[in-house]
């Protein structure tokens, strides 16, 4: 997963601010992601990683700042324009967020059928291909999400995220709640899917094993700001005390744990 080298960043976030009441979660985030690059945003629980991702996706409106996708301003975009923009995105949610009322293949094909008007039969074929790409056979296609284990649900959610072959993939805590072996499988599938699509990827996690496996570049979020960013290879000798404390999981250091969730 290496950048393709275009001059306009795929995603450019500038001066992004977001507060909930008196709680300031994002305090001027500056971040750029090049096309084809895999960026992982790390940070402790409650530091605003999910809020940052939801602002980029348009699920939350920022209070101030700019979010550019392919050079076009998207902050505050609504209606049809937002729906069009969403076609560039694929998202793997932390809890998978599969639709209970639909079976596995309908979940995977949802964006194709409802979002793009693809017929049910061709959408089913695509869904089965994507399920195969994440290591699931056709026998799971008619099962309900509730019948699957957490790891299997994550795979189905990954298949759904890549079904429409998006340009940008978002991964929210992709390995949280999984055993180390299944986490490794999901990490491998993420790398494989992102490479296969040639997509740009933004992930948020506090799992350092996952970070090392899927990141080209790493950014660390603390108290609403990016306090360090650099190549994934530099993470162990970043020279940044916040990153050092976080990477080595030390209690002592400049990072203070957030009491309230962002």
């Amino acid at each position: 997963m290496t950048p393709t080298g275009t001059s306009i960043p795929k995603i450019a976030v500038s001066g992004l601010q977001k507060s909930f009441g008196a709680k300031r979660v994002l305090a001027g985030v500056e971040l750029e992601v090049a096309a084809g690059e895999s960026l992982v945003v790390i940070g402790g629980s409650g530091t605003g990683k999910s809020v940052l991702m939801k602002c980029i996706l348009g699920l939350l409106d920022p209070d101030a700042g700019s979010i550019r996708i392919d050079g076009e301003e998207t902050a505050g975009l609504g209606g049809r324009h937002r729906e069009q923009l969403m076609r560039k995105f694929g998202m793997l949610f932390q809890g998978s967020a599969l639709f209970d009322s639909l079976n596995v293949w309908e979940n995977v094909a949802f964006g194709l059928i409802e979002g793009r008007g693809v017929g049910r039969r061709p959408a089913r074929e695509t869904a089965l291909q994507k399920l195969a790409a994440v290591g699931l056979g056709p026998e799971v296609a008619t099962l309900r999400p509730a019948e699957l284990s957490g790891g299997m649900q994550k795979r189905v959610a990954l298949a759904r995220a890549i079904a429409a072959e998006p340009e940008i993939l978002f991964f929210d805590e992709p390995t949280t709640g999984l055993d180390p072996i299944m986490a490794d499988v999901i990490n491998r599938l993420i790398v494989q899917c992102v490479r296969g699509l040639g997509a740009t990827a933004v992930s948020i996690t506090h799992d350092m094993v996952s970070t090392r496996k899927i990141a080209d570049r790493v950014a660390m979020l603390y108290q609403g700001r990016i306090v360090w960013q650099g190549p994934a290879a530099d993470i162990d000798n970043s020279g940044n005390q916040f990153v050092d404390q976080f990477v080595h999981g030390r209690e002592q250091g400049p990072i203070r744990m957030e009491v309230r969730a962002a």
Partner: protein
Amino acid sequence: MIRFLASVGALTLSFLAACGRLVLFAGRAIIAGVTPPYYPRLVLRQFVAIGYFSLTVVGLTALFTGMVLALQFYVASARFNAESAVATVVVLSVTRELGPVIAGLMVAGRVGAAMAAEIGTMRVTEQIDALTTLSTDPLRYLVWPRLLAGLLTLPFLVLIADIVGVFGGYIVGIYKLGFNPASYLTQTQEYLKSADVTSGLIKAAVFGFVVALMGCYQGYYSRGGAEGVGQATTYAVVSASILILLLDYFLTQAFFA
């Protein structure tokens, strides 16, 4: 004193803000619903969920309401020799008032609660966010089919409730109170005007919309996990029930005053 006035002011402001949010929510859902893409399959599914599955509860409630009404009015009217008006009172009360109000309250308890719980669970498990990321407007996909089905289904339910309620009064009138069947039916028809039925059906449409709106609104903005979903369900039923009774008064005034 100033503290008291401040808290009254704060309460008033938050009430007005909530009203504004509700109206905006309904407006956005209607605009989303009347623009393509359309989801007829989802609307049909909601017709079945709201209409077909509420038939038993609405029918039973209407039956016993009609029966009790006949019995109560007979006992009360005997005090001033007006027993012969039982059939007329039953049919007018059921079609104008009790049919739509009772059906509305029953549907609020059964369907409004289910809507709030389903949409609320989708909110807290990020399924609504997932819809957005899949280029699907949640208002168009989740809310509008429910609003439309609520608006169109409740009049049918109330029509059935009217028939069953009047039938309940007839059963008691004939088998318990000893009325002559032919004269009971004549009395039922004689004073009934089409406006009595249509006003009840219009009320039903409004109540159906309100029940669906409160269920969807409370669910859509629920937060905080299982507790939040439970709270949304309670608020959906309570707010829809209060609104039904409130709107019933104003609609009755508009139709008959």
